[in-house]
């Protein structure tokens, strides 16, 4: 029975708007096996599991279940077949109990047709015991720790008699002790004859639980390894994840750097989080690498005063910056181009002009606000960032992603800060807009700004950065300079494996 192919995908491809994110991937999940999928951010892991779960339809390729072809897999059918996915997002009802959450949608009934809360608690309790967990079935989910909530998600999936369990980075949120518990449960589930598909950034975890590993890179399957008695060669796996020639479509001309202009000292987000300290010179671009969830954005937000921090400070041009709120930190010469332009960077229903003025409203001329006079002030920046195909009065919502990002950039150029933080400055925009934005960022560096740039786009990080900090689990695990900057070096430090 064990080892029999349960889900088999052949030649899966997926394109979004002509952009291939997954190409010709074969994948098999076998009964009683843990099959891990590894790859960098954007390698196509999430797309692959969405295809396997029927959440999206493939552009090409076939999926077989138990040997039978499934021509059009949709979420309802995949649930009927016993395919369960545990996504990273919290999909639990926080105000309800563990038992209620486990049986949402399939609430047990009394013979009279009433809701049978007692039965739900009893069977949830039995399930909890079965997996050796210490949870109270009547506890309210909102009060649980991140790890415990993850257990509830797993129990919820297992209560449905799953035959295939797909897990997307189930341990990314918590400490190694809790991670170990999740891994133990995964192995128990496997031993029940369930086919487990497990996505993770943590190669050590994979070495522990995987029976089979598929490596994805840029939407293609690079290699597949099976355990076969011995262990896995993590070094080779890392190389497989990276081995892409660095695509230097943007070449930065070197320029002279000045003195240290920004000093981040002893920054701690919480009482028990590690200290972060670094310097940035005038004209220097300091890149920040790390897997999604490694704490990069949290660090940037704390530096900018958008979130509370436990301790530490920032010095800009010799002056201690006031980080008590973004308003104060902007006055202290900081700027922060946030990662999600739609949710954090733009007022979508307001005009391009007004979005450009968001930070510098008090610089607009005249007693009353005047669109015309403000436009005179904003126009040079509007032209500098090269927003095209719209006027100052177009609502930001109508712009393409690239143009929206340029507006966000323009907004921060209006204040001319010394210390600029960019969080994923080119996520989700086309190649041309990307290289224009690179031009702007490098231009700022040449003009003597100190830049901190968080990016998950390796070629971008390597092309632009003078130095790179690598983060993992809220800690800076390495710093790479000049000639040593390579994708392999970054991945090695981001995953903390020896190659």
């Amino acid at each position, binding site marked *: 029975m064990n080892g029999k192919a349960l889900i088999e995908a052949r030649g899966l491809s997926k394109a979004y708007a002509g952009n291939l994110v997954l190409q010709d991937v074969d994948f098999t999940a076998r009964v009683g096996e843990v099959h891990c999928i590894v790859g960098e951010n954007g390698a196509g892991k999430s797309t692959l599991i969405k295809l396997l779960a029927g959440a999206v339809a493939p552009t090409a390729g076939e999926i077989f279940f138990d040997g039978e072809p499934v021509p059009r897999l949709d979420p309802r059918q995949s649930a009927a077949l016993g395919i369960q996915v545990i996504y990273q997002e919290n999909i639990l009802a926080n105000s309800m109990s563990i038992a209620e959450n486990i049986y949402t949608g399939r609430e047990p009934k009394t013979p009279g047709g009433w809701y049978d809360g007692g039965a739900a608690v009893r069977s949830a309790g039995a399930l909890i015991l079965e997996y050796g967990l210490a949870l109270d079935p009547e506890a309210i989910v909102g009060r649980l720790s991140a790890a415990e909530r993850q257990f509830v998600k797993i129990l919820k999936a297992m209560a449905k008699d799953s035959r295939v369990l797909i897990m997307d980075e189930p341990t990314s949120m918590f400490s190694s002790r809790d991670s170990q518990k999740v891994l133990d449960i995964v192995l128990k589930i496997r031993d029940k004859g369930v086919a487990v598909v497990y996505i993770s950034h943590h190669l050590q975890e994979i070495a522990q639980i995987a029976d089979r590993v598929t490596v994805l890179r840029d939407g293609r399957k690079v290699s597949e390894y099976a355990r076969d008695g011995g262990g896995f060669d993590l070094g080779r796996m890392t190389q497989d994840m990276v081995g892409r020639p660095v695509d230097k479509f943007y070449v930065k001309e070197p320029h002279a750097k000045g003195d240290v202009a920004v000093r981040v000292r002893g920054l701690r987000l919480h009482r028990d989080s590690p200290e972060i300290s670094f310097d940035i010179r005038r004209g220097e671009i300091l890149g920040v690498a790390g897997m999604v969830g490694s704490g990069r954005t949290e660090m940037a937000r704390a530096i900018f005063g958008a979130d509370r921090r436990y301790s530490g400070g920032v010095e800009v041009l010799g002056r201690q910056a006031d980080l008590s709120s973004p308003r104060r930190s902007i006055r202290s010469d900081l700027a922060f181009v946030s990662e999600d332009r739609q949710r954090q960077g*733009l007022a*979508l229903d307001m005009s391009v002009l007004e979005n450009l003025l968001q930070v510098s409203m008090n610089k607009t001329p005249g007693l009353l606000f005047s669109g015309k006079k403000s436009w005179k002030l904003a126009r040079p920046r509007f032209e500098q960032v090269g927003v095209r195909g719209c006027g100052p009065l177009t609502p930001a919502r109508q712009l393409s992603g690239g143009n929206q990002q340029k507006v966000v950039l323009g907004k921060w150029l209006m204040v001319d800060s010394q210390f600029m933080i960019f969080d994923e400055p080119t996520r989700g925009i086309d190649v041309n807009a990307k290289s224009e934005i690179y031009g702007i960022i490098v231009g700022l560096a040449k003009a003597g700004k100190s830049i901190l740039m968080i990016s998950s786009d390796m070629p971008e990080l390597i092309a632009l950065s003078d130095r790179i900090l690598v983060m993992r689990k809220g800690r800076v695990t390495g710093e790479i300079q000049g000639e040593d900057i390579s994708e392999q070096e970054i991945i090695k430090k981001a995953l903390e494996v020896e190659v």
Partner: protein
Amino acid sequence: MSQAGAKRRTTLQAIVRDHRFYLVCIILLISAAAAALNPRFLLPQNIINILQQVSVIGMCTMGMALLLITGQLDMGIGQLVSMLCILMVVFIQRWQMNLPLALLALACVSVGVSLLSGWVVCKSRCTPLIITLGMGYIYEGIATYVSGGRFYTLDRKLDWLGKMRVFGSIPVSIFIMLAIVLISWALLNRTRYGRRLCSVGSNEENAFLCGINVDFHKITVYGVSGLFVFVAAVVLMARTDTATAAMGSSYTLQALASAVVGGVSFDGGKGTISGALIGCILLGLISNAMNVVGIAATLQTMVQGVIIVVAVVLSNLEKIRGKR
């Protein structure tokens, strides 16, 4: 096709797509129907009547519109009107304060308690709906307690204002409302403060990251609304001369309905002052038209409800189609 022609066409399209266009159409339709049934509907005197009837609600609507555009809400506006009216009588009749001083004190009370609601909403991070509803009960409770549930009269001390006419026969209350509409428009569109209100309502996280003092704007907009409510209370007392503890309680929902019918969204950041005014006039027009046409008073509330629902659904057609 010339460029000017193309531009004219897009302007036309913009007008047709505008929410306010539908409302004006509905106003014209109802007016035509009412005029066909009773030609007296279109007499200047009746139109002045309509505007006078909406003037107090219009002032409250402006406050509500500014709040909604900032992403806030005050469900105690009408109850605040009641409390101010009762306190006005207390200050002037019982305590014998002179008129300007009494009005100044009332303005301070109105702005003060509104700022307090805003402060509580902001600092407690509770939803404004429930906090301001509670504040509304407090206002009405104070009014009931102070008045002992009786009628209170101002003894014609504000009659000069209530009887004041401009251009021969137009009541001054209409001009006071128009002044508040103009002030609201200028505040929202022509001051940096107003544009920041819109930023906060449109995307609070963005406003925060852009260094806008979000709490300051959220709290003070309640104060602005409180100021308008104070003016509304004065104008109301000038007309009625009599105060009861429940006289304003229907204004909250009327002001909210006017603003929302006028295209001001609960999502914040969306909506215009002119839209809110048109919404307010539409609702006033409907109730007047029903009187003039002779629809039974007992039936009017229901008809008004139907028209509100239909008007809002119609003006939302674009959005419904966009979803598909």
